[in-house]
C-alpha cells in the first residue's frame, strides 16, 4: 500500500511537514481580486476549494520578471559593464494544489526550455529541478475546462509527483514518481484504506464522465500548414480580439520572454520579462519593419503556434485545456472554437 491520507483538519500539519528542511511550499492563495500561487506562510493554508487559480503556477518556474545578470556602469571600476551571473540556487520547493492541466503544462515548458536544441535554459532548469508537484485532481471540472481535448484529464498524473484527491473529509495522496514516494514516506503519513483509494477512483471516473465529448486538435497536424496560414478564416476570427496579453499571460504553456537591460544608479541589470505574440512590439524590427503588422497576423500566430507549429515540431498541441483564456478573455475569444474551425 503506497497511498496515504491526510485528514482535512490535518492539512496544516501536513504543510508544516512539507516546510521542514527549509522547503518553500507554494499554494493557491487569495491575492486581492484573484487567486495566485504564492509561498505559504507558516501555518498558512492554501485555497483548495476554488476552481483553478487565475494565473497558472508557471510563474514559480518561469517568473514574469527575473534578473539573469548584474553589471556595474561605474567606468572607474575594473569590471565595468562585465556581466555577472545572478546565482540561481534556491530552496527546494513544492507546488501544492497544482491542477493536472497545469502539471502537464510543465512538461510542455520542459520541451521548450530544456529539450529543444543544444542548449537548456539554466534559469528554468534550476527552479524546475528543485520543484516537486503535489497536484489536486479536479472533482468538478468547469464548463470551460477542456483538458480531455488535449490529451489530459481531471485526474491525469503526467508531470505530477503526487496526486491528491479531495474525498471530502480527507485528502488521498498517491505517489506518481519516486521523488513523490520518497517525500510521502519521509512525512510518515497514515496509509490510506483500500476503500479510500476506491472512493478516489470513483470520483476521478465521475469527473471525467462529466466533461462531455472531446474534440481532437490532433487533426490539425494533418492539415496543410500554408492552407491554414492563408485561410480567410483569420480575417473575421480576430475582429473582436483587443490584442491584450490576458490569454498568453494566464496561459500555463506560453513561454515567450523579452530580454531587457535596466540601470539604477551605477548598478545594471539584465533580465527577462514575459512577452506575448499579441503585442506589436514583440516583432517590431529596429528598421521599423514589422513582419506581423496587424492584429490579424498576431492573432493567427498565437493559434498557429499552439495548434499547428508546436504539433508539427513536438507532436502535441501547446495547450492543456485549462480554459483560462476562455474564462478571462475580455472579448470572448474561445480557443475551442478555433480548434474546431481549424480541424474541420
Amino acid at each position, binding site marked *: 500500500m503506497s497511498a496515504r491520507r491526510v485528514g482535512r483538519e490535518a492539512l496544516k500539519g501536513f504543510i508544516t511537514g512539507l516546510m521542514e528542511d527549509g522547503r518553500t511550499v507554494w499554494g493557491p492563495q487569495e491575492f486581492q*481580486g484573484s487567486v495566485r500561487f504564492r509561498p505559504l506562510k507558516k501555518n498558512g493554508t492554501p485555497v483548495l476549494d476554488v476552481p483553478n487559480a487565475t*494565473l497558472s503556477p508557471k510563474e514559480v518556474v518561469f517568473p514574469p520578471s527575473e534578473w539573469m545578470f548584474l553589471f556595474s556602469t561605474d567606468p572607474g571600476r575594473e569590471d565595468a559593464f562585465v556581466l555577472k551571473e545572478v546565482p540561481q540556487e534556491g530552496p527546494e520547493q513544492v507546488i501544492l494544489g497544482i491542477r493536472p492541466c497545469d502539471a502537464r503544462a510543465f512538461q510542455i515548458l520542459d520541451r521548450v526550455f530544456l529539450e529543444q536544441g543544444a542548449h537548456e535554459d539554466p534559469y528554468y532548469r534550476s527552479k524546475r529541478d528543485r520543484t516537486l508537484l503535489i497536484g489536486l485532481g479536479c472533482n468538478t471540472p468547469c464548463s470551460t475546462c477542456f483538458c480531455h481535448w488535449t490529451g489530459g484529464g481531471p485526474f491525469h498524473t503526467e508531470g505530477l509527483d503526487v496526486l491528491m484527491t479531495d474525498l471530502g473529509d480527507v485528502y488521498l495522496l498517491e505517489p506518481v514518481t519516486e521523488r513523490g514516494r520518497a517525500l510521502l514516506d519521509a512525512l510518515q503519513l497514515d496509509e490510506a484504506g483500500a476503500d479510500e483509494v476506491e472512493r478516489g477512483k470513483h470520483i476521478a471516473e465521475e469527473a471525467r464522465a462529466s466533461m462531455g465529448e472531446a474534440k481532437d486538435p490532433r487533426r490539425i497536424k494533418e492539415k496543410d500548414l500554408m492552407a491554414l496560414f492563408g485561410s480567410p478564416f483569420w480575417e473575421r476570427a480576430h*475582429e473582436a480580439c483587443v490584442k491584450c496579453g490576458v490569454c498568453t499571460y494566464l496561459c500555463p504553456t506560453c513561454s515567450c520572454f523579452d530580454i531587457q537591460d535596466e540601470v539604477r544608479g551605477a548598478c545594471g541589470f539584465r533580465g527577462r520579462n514575459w512577452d506575448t505574440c499579441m503585442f506589436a512590439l514583440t516583432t517590431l524590427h529596429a528598421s521599423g519593419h514589422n513582419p506581423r503588422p496587424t492584429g490579424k497576423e498576431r492573432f493567427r500566430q498565437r493559434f498557429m503556434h499552439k495548434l499547428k507549429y508546436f504539433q508539427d515540431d513536438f507532436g502535441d498541441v501547446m495547450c492543456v485545456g485549462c480554459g483560462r483564456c476562455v474564462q478571462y478573455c*475580455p472579448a470572448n475569444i474561445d480557443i475551442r472554437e478555433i480548434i474546431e474551425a481549424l480541424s474541420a
Partner: protein
Amino acid sequence: MDTRVERIRSEAKRLLESGEVDLVIGFRKGSIPMVSRPWFVRTVEDTELLHWDGFCSLNLCNYLTKRKEKVAVVAKGCDTRSLVGHIQENQIQREQVLVLGVPCEGMLDRRALQERAEGTEILEVVESDGRVEIRGRGLERSFPRQEVLQHCCRICRHRNPVLHDRLLSAEVEEHQVERYEDVEEIDSQSPEERWAYFQNMLSPCIRCYACRNVCPHCYCTECFVDCSRPQWVGKSLDLNDVFTFHLFRAFHMAGRCTDCGSCERACPVGIPLRVLTRKLEKVVSERWGFEAGTDLEQLPPLATYRPDDPQDFIK
C-alpha cells in the same frame, strides 16, 4: 425574445440591405455564460446572431477608431459618450457612424454574481422583470437586478445614449447619484496611507495591458510603454514601472474617460483601476465643470486653451 434584440436585428438588417452602412457592430451571445462577444455584421444572415443582454458591457466605441467604412454601432450611454470623445478627437467622423442607441438598465457584475454562487459554477443567467437568476449544478438563486449591477453602472448618470440616430427602446430614468464616495475616502487618507493603498492595489498587475486595450480612449499609434527609442518605462513587474504605466495612463484619461468600466472588467487580477480615473474625472469636474463625452459642442478642457485660463499653478 427581448424586444431590443428584435429591434437591433431588424435595424441592422434594414441598414445593410439598403446599403446605408457597410458594417454593423453589436454583440452576439458569448460562448460561455456572463460574457457577450462583439459581433461584426456585414451580411443580412449574420444579423440573426445579434444579441442584447446584461453582459453587453464591453465599450464598442473601441472598435470604431480610425475606421474608414460607414458603420452602425449598437451603443449604450457610455459607448455614445466615448463616441462623442472620438468625434471630437477626430478618430471618426460623425457622418460615418450611425448610432443604434440602447437605453441601458445597467450591466451585470459577473464577479459579484459568481461570489453569490458560493463556489458553484454559474452555467446560466436568466434576466427578467428587474431580477436576475443564476443557475448551475444544484444552484438556483435570484436577486434584484439592482443588487448585482457593476459598480460603474450603479453610479452612472448617463444611462441613455447622449447621441443617437435610432433609439431602440424607451429611455430609462437617469439618477443623480453620488460618484466619488470611495475616491473621497482615499483622498482623506494621509500621503503614507495612500501610498500604501496604491502599492497594494497595483501589486497584482501582470502588465497584460488588457485595461489599455479595451479602452476606446487608448488609441495612440504608439503607446508610451511601447516606445523603444527612447524607452520611457521599464518592462518588468518592478512596482515603479507598474506605477508609471497606470498613473500615466490615468492622466491620459483626464477629461476623456467616460467610466464605462471596461478597464476594470478586463483586468484578470481584479485591480480597481477606476479609483484613479474617477479621481481625475472629479478634478476635471470641479475645475472646469466638464463631464466627458456629454456634448459634441463643448470643447474638452485639456485639449483647449484660453488666454484667461488661471495659471497660478505655474510657479
